[in-house]
């Protein structure tokens, strides 16, 4: 599982950070940082929830 964020769509509202802080962090500069773009499989449910809850539909999961 590889995390892909479309940064043109992302508006840093930090919803993903709330759900999967192991993977996503919005810092004080208001930018989103991906902490781990190949997270372990046990984080999959959290990452899928972040995909679903991202208000901009900016997150996707690539299976490569």
């Amino acid at each position, binding site marked *: 599982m590889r995390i892909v964020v479309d940064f043109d769509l992302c*508006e840093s509202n*930090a919803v993903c*950070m709330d759900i999967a802080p192991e993977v996503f962090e919005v810092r004080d500069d208001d930018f989103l940082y991906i902490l781990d773009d190949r997270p372990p499989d046990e984080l999959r449910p959290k990452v899928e929830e972040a995909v*679903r809850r991202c208000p901009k539909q900016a997150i996707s999961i690539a299976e490569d």
Partner: protein
Amino acid sequence: MRSIVVVGASLAGLRSAEALRHEGFAGALTVVGDEPHLPYDRPPLSKQVLAGTWDPGRTALAAGGVGGEDLDLEWRLGARAVGLDMAARRVALEDGSSLAFDGLVIATGAEARWLAGSEGRAGIHVLRTLDDCLALRTDLEAGPRRVVVVGAGFIGAEVAATCRGRGLDVTLLEVLPVPLGRVLGEEVGSVYAAMHRDHGVDVRTGVAVAGFEGGDRVERVRLGDGSEVEADVVVIGVGVAPATGWLAGSGLTLDDGVVCDATCLAAPGVVAAGDVARWPNPRFGQVMRVEHWDNAIDQGAHAARRLLDGDGPGTPYQPVPWFWSDQYDRKLSLAGRPGPGDTMTVVQGSLAERRFLALYGRAGRVVGALGMNRPAPVMRYRARIAGGLAWDDALRELEETP
């Protein structure tokens, strides 16, 4: 449970259907919606789609699971539910047919309110559906001399901002002395009013609308004090009403929404979620109905799990609601549930620079965090409000961190 019917083919309905499948429900799953469209996303309707920067097709919500999997749903679109027979366990549709169910998810959302005398005259709009949005957009593309927005709540304020972005003259009418004053308090509401004025909106507060004038098309809005505002286009943004008309006489308790228990159960085998559902949220000790995008997803999934729990006790649904609104270059986000009479204090930035974080407190607890262009701290407080953050602790901690 062999068959489940979901009424309402939008965000809460889709997410509950997805959760039902993820939790292993393998029976027949039918989603009924009165709009002709597959589920789509509403927030862009007052923003990008109305502005004309997004093609309407971009609002489509992937009608499958997150991984793109087929949820094996039977869609009944353009089909309005008109009645619920709890004894026979059937949903009646407008075309005279009916659907039997073992389990029912009510996700009919909310409908925009009109004002007396506003319906049926060309040029007067509400904004709830994609079709509403496209009709309004067509009127805006015709280059009206003035757009009058009635109601400075979030939808009205976003429409005003989007119309200014199109270079149109806008008057924003609000009956309260300060827009959003009841939800966010007068100080923050005043920041909003000032921001719209700075962007050239003619904001008039404390004014009531008395009526609409013109021929087939609206020409003027008459105000309570007898004065008039010229208007080629009027947008009514005075809030929504939960779509419960089809449930009248069903035996379910209806009171500004479908009344549920703390687990989202409205009756045995019947759950409700999204803008239509009212339930006691144990986290806030308060009965609430939440009109937020994020809640429709979260509650849709929770209600699905509750339904599958059958005669089990279920678990209470106790979110800290979260909401955002985009206006001009400002992004507001709000976690929690501030209300009239709460204490409010700005803890980062300042109202004057329009980049700030404010906390709301009630009965010794932090009950809300509001940010203007401060999204990440709002989210951090969302988690801490869920943990029962005390007001004094929050303030002390802020004093200690330079």
